[in-house]
């Protein structure tokens, strides 16, 4: 091989994979990306039926809980929180990748976010919807909790306790949900207009027309849109950090060994991004296959996400390490017992080791490009990470609670069928919402992909034109 050819080959090998495969035109992109909306898919119908059935479990689980009481769950003394708060933290964590991809990567001008941000944002909203259910239904008297947790003026002069992290949760989660929804919707407007314009059926035109809010794509519109989108991105960015920090305060502010840990806020945020990206991968890999989005959601996207997971996994692992180090270094007998006896050898040791395997070992494979580009392994690994993150919350919540200070009060926890119904139900309901989203809303940010496409072709043309 001649040196120039060799250099070119090396460059080729190092050059990132393309973000958009081929040279599609705008019309091609329209047809390709709006296909799920205009030409329904049989697989989709089956999946929706399945998810709807699964959501029935959620309805049953919640009905039983509200009608009979929390006693229908496995929660007890001393394990006051279990699946309820595990699921809450897990879902909130999953909801993190969306905003991170949309907002932070937007501000950092990471172009690869364009094809997947819509997915991720939708996932965020639906995940936060699942999560938001738990703070309410986990209470003994949700019919009061639904408004007593908000600071509303009343004749009794009673306010919520602003010292309680649960109140901070209420504000953090509701703010996060509102901003995420607005951000998602604002990003959707140009695409809704495209839908309105390409729709052939009158009902679709009217429906999408209403939601498009009269978008015409004028430069004036684009100017306001850009400013608005950037402002929301700016607001969302600190939220990514704040929400899970505050969720971590639920634990860090208490005095229970395994909860009372100052490293929790960053460790929770990293864990959330980690778990969130895993969920994006879990969803996007089958979705791009079913809807044939391979052109715009390329292996490069998947690889980038794997890299993010590798980094966040290392942060999470560092968190695990530090927790153990602190337990040893503090010489606190209660903490030492938790970290060196209860977690690794206690009744729920298996869950602890699953956590370590899924969250620490599995992502280490992403040092190898082969692993990052193997779609099948990525999908399996992403599911394992999802399980690992759920196990992490089990370890934090149940394992810390079931053996705390006084051995006289130690007691085991076992979930009931209602716990499983609610957990399975939220997964199904999440899937249902996601499937509906895939079917009725452009799941890839059409306008942004087109823009990126133009930019890339423009750059290519310049490169071909022999600019120095």
């Amino acid at each position, binding site marked *: 091989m001649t040196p120039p050819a060799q250099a070119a080959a090396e460059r080729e090998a190092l050059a990132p994979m393309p973000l958009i495969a081929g040279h599609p035109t705008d019309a091609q992109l329209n047809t390709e990306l709006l296909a799920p909306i205009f030409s329904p898919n049989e697989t989709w119908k089956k999946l929706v039926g399945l998810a709807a059935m699964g959501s029935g479990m959620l309805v049953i689980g919640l009905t039983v809980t509200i009608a*009979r*009481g*929390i*006693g*229908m769950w*496995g*929660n*007890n*003394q*001393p*394990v*006051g*929180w279990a699946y309820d708060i595990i699921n809450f933290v897990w879902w909130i964590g999953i909801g993190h990748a969306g905003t991170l991809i949309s907002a932070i990567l937007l501000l950092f001008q990471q172009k690869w976010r364009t094809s997947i941000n819509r997915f991720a944002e939708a996932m965020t909203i639906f995940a936060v919807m699942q999560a938001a259910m738990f703070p309410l239904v*986990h*209470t*003994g*008297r*949700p019919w*009061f*909790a639904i408004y*007593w*947790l908000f600071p509303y003026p009343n004749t009794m002069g*009673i*306010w*919520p*306790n602003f*010292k*309680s*992290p*649960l*109140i901070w949760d*209420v504000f953090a989660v509701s703010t996060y949900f509102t901003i995420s929804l607005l951000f998602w919707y604002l990003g959707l407007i140009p695409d809704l207009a495209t839908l309105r314009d390409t729709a052939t059926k009158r009902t679709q035109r009217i429906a999408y027309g209403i939601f498009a809010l009269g978008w015409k794509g004028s430069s004036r519109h684009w100017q306001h849109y850009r400013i608005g989108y950037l402002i929301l991105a700016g607001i969302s960015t600190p939220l990514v950090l704040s929400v899970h920090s505050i969720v971590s305060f*639920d634990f860090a*502010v*208490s*005095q*229970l060994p395994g909860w009372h840990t100052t490293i929790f806020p960053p460790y929770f945020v990293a864990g959330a991004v980690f778990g969130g990206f895993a969920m994006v991968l879990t969803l996007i890999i089958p979705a791009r296959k079913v809807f044939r989005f391979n052109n715009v959601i390329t292996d490069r996207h998947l690889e980038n996400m794997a890299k993010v997971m590798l980094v966040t996994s290392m942060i999470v692992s560092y968190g695990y390490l530090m927790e153990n180090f602190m337990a040893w270094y503090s010489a606190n*007998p*209660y903490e030492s*017992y938790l970290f060196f006896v209860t977690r690794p050898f206690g009744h729920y040791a298996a869950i602890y080791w699953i956590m370590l395997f899924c969250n620490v070992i599995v992502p280490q494979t992403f040092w190898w490009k082969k692993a990052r580009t193997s779609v099948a392994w990525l999908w399996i690994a992403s599911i394992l990470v999802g399980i690992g993150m759920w196990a992490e919350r089990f370890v934090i919540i149940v394992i810390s*609670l079931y053996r*705390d*200070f*006084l*051995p*006289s*009060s*130690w*007691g*085991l*926890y076992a979930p009931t069928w209602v716990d499983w119904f609610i957990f399975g139900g939220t997964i199904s309901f999440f899937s249902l919402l996601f499937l509906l989203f895939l079917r009725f809303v452009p799941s890839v940010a059409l306008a942004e992909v087109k823009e990126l496409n133009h930019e890339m072709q423009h750059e290519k043309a310049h490169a071909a034109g022999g600019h120095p």
Partner: protein
Amino acid sequence: MKSLPVIQDHAEPRPPGHRSLWQSVEELEARAAAGRGEFAAGAAEVPPELSRRSFMQILGASAALGGLTACQPPREKIVPFVHEPVENRPGKRFHYATALSLDGYATGLLVGSADGRPVKVEGNPAHPTSQGASSTWDQGALLDLYDPERAKGYWRAGNALSWRGLLAEIQKLAREHEADGGAHLAFLLAPDASPTQAELRRGLQARFPKARIHVWAPVTEENATEGARIAFGRPLELRVSLDPARAILSLDSDFLSGQGESLRLTREFARHREPGAEMSRLYVAEPAMSLTGVNADHRFRMKGAEVAPFARAVAAQLGVVPGAPVLSPELTRAAKAVAADLAAHRGRSVVLAGLRQPPAVHALVHAMNAALGNVGVTVRHGRPVLGDAAPSSAALPALAREIEGGKLDTLVITAWNPVHAAPAGLDLGALLARIPNALYLSLREDETSRRCSWRLASSHPFESWGDARSRDGVASLVQPLIAPLYESTTAIDLLAAFLDAGDRGALRHVKAHWAARSALDPATFEAHWEGWLRQGVIPGTAEPAEAAPVDLAAVASALGRLPGAKGEGLELALAPSYGLFDGRFAGNAWLQELPDPITKVSWDNAAYLSEATAKRLGVEGGQVVTLALGSRSVQAPVMVMPGHADDAVTLSIGYGRTDGSAVSKGVGVDAYRLREAGAWFAPGLTVTAGKGKHKFAVAQGHFSMEGRPLALDFSTKEWATDAGRAELEHLHGLPATAQVPVDYSKQEYSWGMSVDLSRCTGCNACVIACQEENNIATVGKEQVAKGRIMHWIRTDRYFSGPVANPQTITQPVMCQHCETAPCEYVCPVNATVHSEEGLNEMVYNRCVGTRYCSNNCPYKVRRFNFLAWRPEVPDVETLLFNPDVTVRSRGVMEKCTYCVQRIEGARIDARTGGKKIGQVQSACQQACPAQAIVFGNLNDPQSRVKKLHDDERRYDLLHELGTRPRTAYLVKIRNPNPDLA
């Protein structure tokens, strides 16, 4: 005489000459139902065609029946106040003195009554047995009173009888039996020291000279009586005083258990458990861990049959009887040391034998106490107060023979449930069914009532008039707190009915007896009577002590007759249960749910055995095994009990009921199926491992403190050195990390509590007292197993040392009312807040039930209403609730409030009186026989609680967390014998 057409059911109007036609079965049934109407004819409305004639008919009948009330016996009625006394106001609590007897021995009580219904049981401070304390069983009596499943009315062969009808029937029966002197009449009575009943019994004997009066109960003290007969030649009773005792040897005597005089003994024992010259030392020799064994300074575990040789060895060392048996080197050394210690405390020591031990051991104990010069100091002897009403285990076999011999037509049973508790192999149920007239008086329907032709509901003691005597003879009057909730009668009325005096009413019998006995003129008597009722005791009724020389030769010969302890084979040991006693409390959900003080098992009994024996038999905890004695066997789940003697299995009686209320049925294993009449120990037990696995509901599964400084104990030696105290130094006061203390000095009151672990025996009286005071729900076995027991105060129990014979410590834990409470700041709705007097308050109305407070509570004393524990409360049970305490609903957190309702009650009284709040007692403190719990005002330098907070034994539980609890603990001091170290 012409008979008039009486008011009848309306027949369906039918056209003449037509048969009634119907189209479907439903229509036919609907028509029939419509015709019946909701009420019986004439009950709800006047018949439609009220003719002049039928009007006159009803009028006449009303007039005639109206007069019938005058024929009712003069039953003593409790009526609401017609003229409200001026001092009464709604919600004000009145206390009435009464007494409750357990197998004939009375404990004096003060029962609190709110708006005419008894709501809280307290001990009567003036009563010698109670001294203000009360036991779990005394407290539990209240739940029995309001049990909706109590027996109601009088039934003969399934037909209801009126009281008058019953009296008439009994009168008829009595006349028939009088004819042949009562040759076909027998009584099976419960043991009772009531002087009125004794008089009635004498009356019965006079009227029916040939009738047999048996007295029976499952748990008897016959061995002690027999032992006294050997030692003294007559059945004298032992009266123990632990106050002067410095060395105590218990030979399988569970004197802290709740039976007999345990309240007084616990108080006297606890008083001398504080370090100092007055401190006593307790040695216990026993098979299974008992409450007394838990509190021992030295506990020697041995099979039940080995206690006698051990006692002999100690006696031989003391030179009481010759001939020491061969013991293991360890026990020989122990016997030597114990004997030396007892001898060193001549005249200040005491030896006690348990009711399960054979008469010879009791006789030997009398000899030892005499030899040690304890008579007149720690022990006295007196005539037994039960007299002829002492229970005998031979009663049931004798009765069975009488029935089989066809000698019985009428049997009157007031003893508790003889069918269930009959000796194994005696099918008393079938025999009872053969008696034409078996009259059974019982509080609840049970196995026996199903077999008796006459079922008579018994009034609860809180509904009855009567009298009773404590173990030392002091008599008390039993007065009702409420009119009988159901149609029911008392033993006095029933026995009197056989003397044709059933219509006099129990009050008159009791009053007549005491009037005659006191020989006062009527006016003075009335005043005295009032005074006795108010006081709860009748002065001058105590049995005097009698001097009695011990016949050493008889003791030695009785010991010689004892069968030698066989080293081989398994021994079955039966024991009364701490919750259900002999089973009579099986219908009481509080006592069923109360965890066993040692094993913490709730709603169950188990075959307890030692770890080594379990290993040898190849069984493990929870495994169901077959316990067989000869041809009899029961299936029981195994539980390993630390400190249990090897080669022995202990099973509590009182469980495994097949009949009775929903609460009692099917809980645990029926140990009576293995029991010979009156026997407690049986050799030759075989244990066959089964396959089944039993799930226990254990309220405290973990036995070890894991090396954490939680329930602290020191030996007297450790405590005497500075090292012991230095260890405590950093466990109280303000931790370095805590914030500046809140200044309470400007407040008049600052509430606090102290718990003395040296005093606490772990008897659980506080648990039930709290449950009663604070309307705490029971949750049932399944929920206890899930970890949802609701007790606000629990007695934690930890073992340390070898599993074979560990040291035990008990620690009552309730809300610590932390100054910087971890629960308070995490509650999102401000439902748990700090009061300005330092209480950690729980606002039920505001609670939404996030359970965050419970998660953050390091003491885990908060209790959550996971389900609606009381979805529907029967009307009668609502009477049970303390009106001063909110009944919590589902989804709400609850916990100990330091009995805030009592503080507020005292505040109201103080305010109206213009005074400061005086003494306030929490419910747990008031019940505690050991006086281990003290509550009060920390701002009062004179208060006992303040002094205890400043005691050098004080420490704070989990002090290093900086929670700064208002409940202080005082370390337990053990007093081991240096010779046995």
